[in-house]
């Protein structure tokens, strides 16, 4: 398996479902269909589809942390919020020209990764794991939500950017690509759709390479048996920290894309509900694999969106029921269970 080198070789491996000609043919068809999609749908629907895609990065990050690393984190939403607010603060202060929104996006994602690394340092060097990791990360999320919620007064501002308490921050320019003549403003429209789709394909393939690398090997080894991994000479804290920070960066990317997409962000994006939803998406899809996570997340968000027509309370209850059913009937995830039924090849 590891006999031949090369990054592309790592696209397939023991840590990912799907290999061989037929899988990649299916993948190519899926990408082609996704590329053709805007030709057949109106702009509003395409804009709404981007909204779905925005969340998948956060889910893939959680898949890395939880599914591969065995660390159940509710902290993805905190990093989403930090990045979203970070993007807003920078863009409101410096404006969208000269490619600054792209720099703001990079800085915001880096801030999320750094914040994740800081929390991760205390968690992993403090040997906090299991359910306590979930509790601490949930607490961090809720503390951030509470903090941002009380920033309604005019004294809460960073430069010209008002934080605005529960009403949230709005009016930041969307991602803008500098272009000779006229800049390309990525409002929720077809160009943004292709940018986000491209990022999604890159993130998915990049993570496939990562989890099938020697780093991914150690990460699943830590999930399976941290003591054994340590006694093979691995400083498991470093691997956990790296996975946590990388996963956090993906949550940050979701935060930037979401904020840019809707041109607003509120503290409730870091609330209890928001913190639990990624766990539902990833669990229902199948946390131990990137593909099932990706498919599951899109399906669950799609279903959630469809249900909110009847009221968001019902949709949330349905999510809860879905999670319980998954845990009871298919602990490895519904999409995973379906994939195994189809292939019946992997253990």
């Amino acid at each position, binding site marked *: 398996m590891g*006999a031949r080198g090369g990054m592309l070789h790592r696209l397939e491996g023991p840590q990912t479902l799907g290999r061989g000609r037929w899988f990649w043919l299916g993948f190519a068809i899926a990408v082609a269909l996704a590329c053709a999609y805007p030709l057949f749908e109106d702009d509003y629907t395409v804009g709404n589809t981007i909204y779905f895609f925005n969340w998948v990065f956060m889910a893939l990050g959680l898949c890395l942390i939880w599914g591969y690393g065995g660390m159940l984190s509710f902290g993805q939403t905190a990093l989403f919020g930090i990045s979203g607010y970070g993007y807003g603060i920078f863009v409101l202060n410096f404006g969208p020209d000269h490619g600054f929104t792209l720099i703001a996006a990079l800085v915001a994602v880096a801030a999320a990764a750094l914040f994740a690394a800081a929390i991760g340092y205390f968690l992993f060097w403090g040997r906090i794991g299991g359910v306590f990791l979930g509790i601490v990360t949930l607490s961090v999320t809720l503390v951030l939500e509470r903090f941002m919620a009380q920033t309604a007064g005019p004294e809460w501002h960073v430069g010209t950017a008002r934080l605005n308490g529960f009403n949230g921050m709005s009016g930041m320019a969307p991602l803008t690509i500098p272009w000779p003549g006229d800049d390309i403003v990525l409002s929720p429209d077809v160009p943004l759709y292709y940018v986000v789709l491209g990022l999604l394909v890159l993130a998915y393939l990049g993570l496939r390479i990562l989890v099938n690398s*020697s780093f991914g*090997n150690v990460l699943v080894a830590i999930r*399976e048996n941290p*003591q*054994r*991994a340590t*006694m093979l*000479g691995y400083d498991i804290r470093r691997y956990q920290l790296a996975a946590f920070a990388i996963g956090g960066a993906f949550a940050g990317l979701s935060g930037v894309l979401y904020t840019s997409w809707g041109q607003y962000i509120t503290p409730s994006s870091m609330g209890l509900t928001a913190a639990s939803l990624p766990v539902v998406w990833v669990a229902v899809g199948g946390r131990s694999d990137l593909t099932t996570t990706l498919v599951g997340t899109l399906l669950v968000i799609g279903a959630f969106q469809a249900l909110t027509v009847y009221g968001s309370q019902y949709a949330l209850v349905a999510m809860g029921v879905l999670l319980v059913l998954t845990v009871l009937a298919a602990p490895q995830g519904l999409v995973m269970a379906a994939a195994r039924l189809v292939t019946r090849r992997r253990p």
Partner: protein
Amino acid sequence: MTMLETRGLNKHFGGLQVTDDVNLVLARGELHCLIGPNGAGKSTFFRLILGEYPPSSGQILFDGADITRLPSHERVRRGMSVKFQVPGVFQALSVQQNLEIALQHHLEGASLAAEIDRLLGFLDLVADRAQRAGNLSHGQKQWLEIGMAVSLKPSLLLLDEPTAGMSIEETHATGEMIKALNAEGMTILAVEHDMEFVRQVAQRVTVLHLGRIFAQGDIDAITADERVAAIYLGQGHAHA
């Protein structure tokens, strides 16, 4: 030449003294067995050597260097390796991947694949290479873990009840494997309950009792020692 030395090693949990002033010297190339009744402090002593517990006082020297405060993974990097009592394999991963994770420190590419093949042959697990480690029989898991521990090419191999749960045949085969590793120059310290096994492999035996070194010597001297029989082997065996 000393491979491992503990000096005045103590460990207490609250008021409970679990390791009490243990001074053990392990020569390079030695195959040493650590025995003692349940609760003698064998496992704690192992954990102290591995760095899983910090000692309350005392020193641990490995290959001439003081490693008392070194984290576990650093000790492993310096040439220590362990096989746990409960098979510590990566259950959900394939046999091959278990070995790959153990070996990927120092090997890659073709040499990694070749070494995996060699170990699979050595462990008699060639047919099971794609099998989930969790699906192996108990004895096979023990062997796989020994293979992982040995693959690091350690200078000191620690074995915590390596034959626990094995059949008589498997126990004997494991003993021969351990003797072969020792013959290649590996220093080995094993905690073991099975006296047949100890008789098969050990050059020197240390008896722990109530956290202290109670007796030390070759296996014949230890089995002939009536005090040892009284605390460990049971009176009935003393004259057997």
